[in-house]
């Protein structure tokens, strides 16, 4: 039974046409990740810049502190999530037809999640390693 506020024809409903049901959630998540990224980026930008020099040892000891390690982890995860969502919007705007758009979005998401895992692995290895 079609609810009172769904004015799509049965074919349109079956094809999944019309507005996306998770648009609000998507938009919120984009803004929330953006807000979280403000302190994370400022911490990262100024933190890395203030290291005396960048060597394996300096980075490892900087990441030994639990706060720095967790900030780094959150930065990688949240910025990639925010970025994947942003890329999706861009692909939806510019890539036609449907299959090419879907491929573009999925490839960027697979790449994003892979990099997330790689980033978490690297940070943990630096922080917890010898």
């Amino acid at each position: 039974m079609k609810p009172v506020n769904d004015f799509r024809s049965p074919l349109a409903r079956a094809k999944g046409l019309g507005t996306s049901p998770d648009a609000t959630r998507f938009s919120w998540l984009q803004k929330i990740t953006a807000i979280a990224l403000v302190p994370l980026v400022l911490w990262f930008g100024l933190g890395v810049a203030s290291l005396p020099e960048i060597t394996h040892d300096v980075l490892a000891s900087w990441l030994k502190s639990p706060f720095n390690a967790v900030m780094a982890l959150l930065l990688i995860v949240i910025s990639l999530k925010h970025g994947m969502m942003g890329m999706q919007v861009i692909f939806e705007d510019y890539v036609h037809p449907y299959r090419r758009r879907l491929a573009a979005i999925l490839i960027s998401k697979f790449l994003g999640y892979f990099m997330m895992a790689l980033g978490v692995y690297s940070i943990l290895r630096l922080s917890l390693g010898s």
Partner: protein
Amino acid sequence: MSWNDKRPMSPHLQVYKLPLTAKLSILHRATGVVLFIGVILLVLVLLAAANGPQSWASMHAFLSSWLGKLVLFGFTLSLYYHLCNGIRHLFWDMGKGFDLNDAEKAGKFVILATFLLTIVTWLVAL
């Protein structure tokens, strides 16, 4: 579906002078793409650091080269622009600052803040 009409289109981007707000808007999108690639490269840098002194040595050599420094500079510039303009966006989300004069003033402040933050970061780093 994809554009199949071969008739000529009236020129727009080649003739119309884009307002400041429009330029800042597309710049926000462009810096977003640059940053997505940049964070991926950042992860690869962290991986090189985590894998030990040899892999770090080659990564460090690249980052110290002129190309590496250019990439890093471009990354920090994009990062701070997207950050500052992103905050400008968040104010809009709260419903504040939609008046064109306010939006343009905020935009100019964003440009200024971008350069200041980039310069400060590089001065601290070097």
